């Protein structure tokens, strides 16, 4: 293999598993160290810079970082990254003085459709550069689906208001209660660019099912119903409630129904439980509130008695997989199952709808009626119009919307500066030695086996009586410190300088994970096989040095390296050094080098 090019920031970026997995590439270990040091405000600002909504995400994020966490590969449970983020938000001081000031207007105006996470991210990134941002939303407050779909018992309104406030304080002009019904009309006004962050606002229905029309008074679309609850138009529901669907919206629906008077709430899913789309922790929380989940039940009919919904019939199925792993749900032939109920909430997915975008204004739509976009620039076929969040490629999550927002902001800035939007400024990175003395590192290098801490919950009876009472209480500072200490500091990289190596084997002998090898070079499959412990995890790279004095090369399997620094501590010539790698995603306002 060729020597690894560590001057390419993508190499070490991939080693920081959590940051790499995060759509917004938040520097996770960097802020976790600040939390461990009790510097919550610093931790918060690192987050704010990168993901805009630390308090919201610390409660509601889909956590793509956690399955990626290295600790999950060497121990059972990953670091509770998401809940540590919340700690930063919960215990920070007043950070208003740290926030950027509104910049002097540069004379450019941007319209943003929808006040959800994608639009707000674009607004934040561009407002500080002097762009005047006008945000339009049909709801009476900002936040988009963060406000309308995430129930208060998971995300208190105060947290949302605070973090949206940091953005509107930058001089962003908000037009709430303003429904945009024509893109043409918007384009005819004096906006230099338009960003569409209008989400995926339409909940899927079951229009063809018998009884749907007759029982429509007691059948509700999940996301609309949640919005109605959030804005307090709906305050109660029947005693017996069926929730259809297995995603996070279904979980939010069933738990909300429990708080609005539903005491027999059941979730009914088509697929096997293991394939439910909801995050495992959301399912756990629902089950903990005495909500049973019936899987492999396909809705067959809304049963109407005396002109009123009486219950639902379901067909029992089982999942059968063909040789390609494609699933089909095959009826078991058993009698249909009847569940009596007073109300049904349909939470079986949502989709995009752009009835307000005229099709003759240069914005092309594809066969699925989605805008044709560049995945890199988020620019539509009308160069003035950009998309992001769920409106871009269909329903995802908050952190993905934020990531889209950042990239769209970069594009809009480039576009309005007259630059090529395809030519993106490179991400920033730094690599700095952490050596403090002969055997001292500036980070806490000791690694111990340590179980994940559990977040305490509010008393169930109280929580079920109060829709707004937050269920998760968050870590206290002492527990947060313990959990933060579980972080392996994957951003502190093992950097190897082949010219300094005397091949004494000290690093090989000391490495607790048998990652380091000095062997004859070969191609990658051969090297992977020849290591002290063969490197079977193909998703993790091999770090290969140039040829050493004996003709061999150093090969390190990045897979289970603990970043404990023992190799560097044991190295007599400092051929190994522990260097902190900080990767920063390109931000709007950056300029291409050269």
């Amino acid at each position, binding site marked *: 293999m060729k020597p690894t090019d560590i001057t390419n920031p993508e190499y070490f970026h991939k080693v920081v598993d959590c940051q790499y997995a995060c759509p917004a590439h938040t520097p996770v270990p960097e802020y976790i160290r600040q939390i461990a040091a009790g510097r919550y405000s610093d931790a918060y600002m690192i987050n704010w810079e990168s993901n805009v909504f630390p308090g919201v995400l610390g409660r509601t994020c889909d956590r793509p970082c956690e399955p990626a966490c290295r600790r999950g*590969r*060497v*121990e059972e449970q990953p670091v509770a990254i998401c809940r540590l983020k919340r700690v930063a938000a919960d215990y920070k001081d007043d950070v208003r003085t740290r926030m950027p000031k509104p910049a002097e207007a540069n004379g450019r105006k941007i319209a943003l459709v929808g006040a959800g996470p994608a639009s707000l991210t674009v607004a934040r990134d561009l407002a500080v550069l002097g762009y005047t941002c006008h945000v339009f939303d049909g709801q009476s407050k900002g936040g988009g689906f963060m406000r309308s779909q995430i129930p208060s018992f998971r995300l208190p309104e105060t947290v949302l208001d605070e973090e949206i406030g940091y953005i509107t304080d930058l001089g962003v002009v908000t037009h709430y209660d303003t429904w945009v019904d024509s893109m043409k009309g918007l384009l005819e006004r004096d906006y230099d660019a338009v960003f569409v962050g209008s989400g995926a606002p339409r909940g899927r229905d079951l229009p063809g099912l018998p009884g749907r029309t007759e029982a429509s008074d007691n059948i509700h679309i999940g996301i609309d119903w949640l919005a109605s609850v959030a804005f307090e138009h709906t305050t109660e529901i029947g005693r017996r409630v069926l929730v259809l669907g297995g995603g996070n919206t279904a979980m939010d629906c069933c738990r909300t129904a429990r708080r609005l008077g539903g005491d027999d709430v059941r979730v009914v899913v088509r697929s096997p439980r293991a394939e439910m789309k909801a995050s495992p922790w959301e399912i756990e929380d629902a089950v903990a509130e005495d909500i049973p989940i019936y899987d492999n039940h396909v809705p067959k009919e809304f049963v109407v008695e005396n002109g009123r919904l009486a219950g639902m019939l379901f067909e029992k199925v089982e999942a059968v997989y063909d040789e390609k792993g494609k699933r089909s749900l095959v009826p078991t032939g058993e009698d249909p199952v009847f569940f009596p109920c007073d109300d049904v909430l349909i939470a079986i997915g949502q989709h995009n709808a752009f009835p307000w975008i005229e099709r003759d204004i240069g914005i092309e739509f594809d066969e699925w009626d989605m805008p044709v976009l560049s995945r890199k620039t988020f620019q539509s076929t009308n160069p003035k119009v950009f998309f992001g969040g769920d409106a871009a490629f269909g329903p995802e999550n908050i952190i993905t919307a934020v990531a889209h927002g950042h990239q769209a902001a970069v594009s809009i800035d480039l576009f309005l500066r007259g630059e090529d939007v395809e030519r993106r400024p490179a991400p920033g990175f730094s690599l700095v030695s952490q050596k403090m003395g*002969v*055997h*001292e590192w500036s980070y806490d*290098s*000791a*690694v*111990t*086996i340590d179980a994940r801490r559990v977040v305490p919950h509010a008393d169930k009876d109280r929580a079920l009586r109060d829709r707004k009472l937050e269920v998760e209480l968050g870590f206290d500072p002492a527990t947060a410190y313990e959990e933060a200490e579980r972080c392996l500091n994957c951003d502190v990289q093992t950097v190897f300088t082949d010219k300094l190596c*005397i*091949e*004494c*084997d*000290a690093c*090989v*002998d*000391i490495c*607790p*994970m*048998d*990652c380091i090898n000095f062997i004859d070079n070969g191609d990658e499959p051969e090297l992977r096989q020849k290591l002290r*412990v*063969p490197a*079977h995890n193909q998703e993790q790279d091999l770090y290969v040095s140039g040829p050493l*004095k*004996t003709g061999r090369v150093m090969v390190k399997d990045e897979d*289970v390296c*603990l970043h*404990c*620094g*023992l190799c560097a*501590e*044991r*190295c*007599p*010539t400092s051929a190994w050094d522990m260097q902190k790698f900080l990767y920063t995603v390109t931000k709007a306002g950056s300029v291409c080098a050269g």
Partner: protein
Amino acid sequence: MSYVRPSFRHPQLPANELGLTRRDYEGSLSTLCSGCGHDSISGAIIQACFELSIPPHKVAKLSGIGCSSKTPTYFLGKAHGFNSVHGRMPSVATGANLANRDLIYLGMSGDGDSASIGLGQFGHVVRRNLNMIYIVANNGCYGLTKGQDSATADVGSVSKAGKVNPFEPIDLCTLALHQGATFVARSFSGDKDQLVPLLKAAIAHKGFAFIDVISPCVTFNNTPQSTKGYEFVRDHIEATGKIDFVPMKSEITAKYEPDFTHEVTLHDGSVIHLYKGDKELDVLDRRSALTAIENHKEAGRFLTGLLYMEPENNDLHDTLGTTRKPLRDLNEAELCPNNHALQVINDSLR
């Protein structure tokens, strides 16, 4: 400075016949200097014992004083150990071995411990052919007392202090050969590919097995002019041939390269294969070994690898006709024969 090693282990760490992993053969975290050759020797011992599936509690580690003699703390943490007086490890090893011949005796010594203060003890343990593995971690200096030249420092070698050593070195391999050692080898701490099979062969060998391991002192004796620094050794090393150790238990399949020049069967049925061996050296001939060492020395080279072995020999127990049982297993009847037995002895002396 880290004083504990994380207790994490690679999830796919291979296990040996006993179900133990290499990690089960480790000891405490070394406190030797970073990059010390001795730590590599510990690593090689760990590897050899792991590969041979030796139950750690069947090993007794014995040592004297010095950096080398600290190392038993850093391997086989679950084995027995005795850190004895400077240069007196052979006496303790002899006593322990005579009391219980069922253990594997692993003596860990250094050039100071064996070639200076312990030279007398060394000569005697060799000539008695005590069944043990005797390793000298040879760095040519007294690292524990700031790097003075030791008795194995070569003439002309310059340590960190900057003074040229004027004295003739003691070659412990030559000495061991002269004193009748039944297994003699030399190796280099930076060459585990050679050291591990040598250690395995030494463990399988019955009788006194001596391995002199050149082990650079990174702190005091790793200068470009030192003949025991990493660079000099790498540039001047020559091997008697590649060595393969085939344990008695493993089936001899065609996996091993067929073109070996020597095949030696050990007392326990294990086999050693030597490849591309030095044509002038016959590892079964003591005189040939001495000549080969001298020839290489004249040419300014280190000859490493297996130098000599005598698979069939009488160890100290055979010579003394001692009891097969460990002394602690002897019961009262065996320890105190009755009056009749005494009369028989007395009669035989009349």
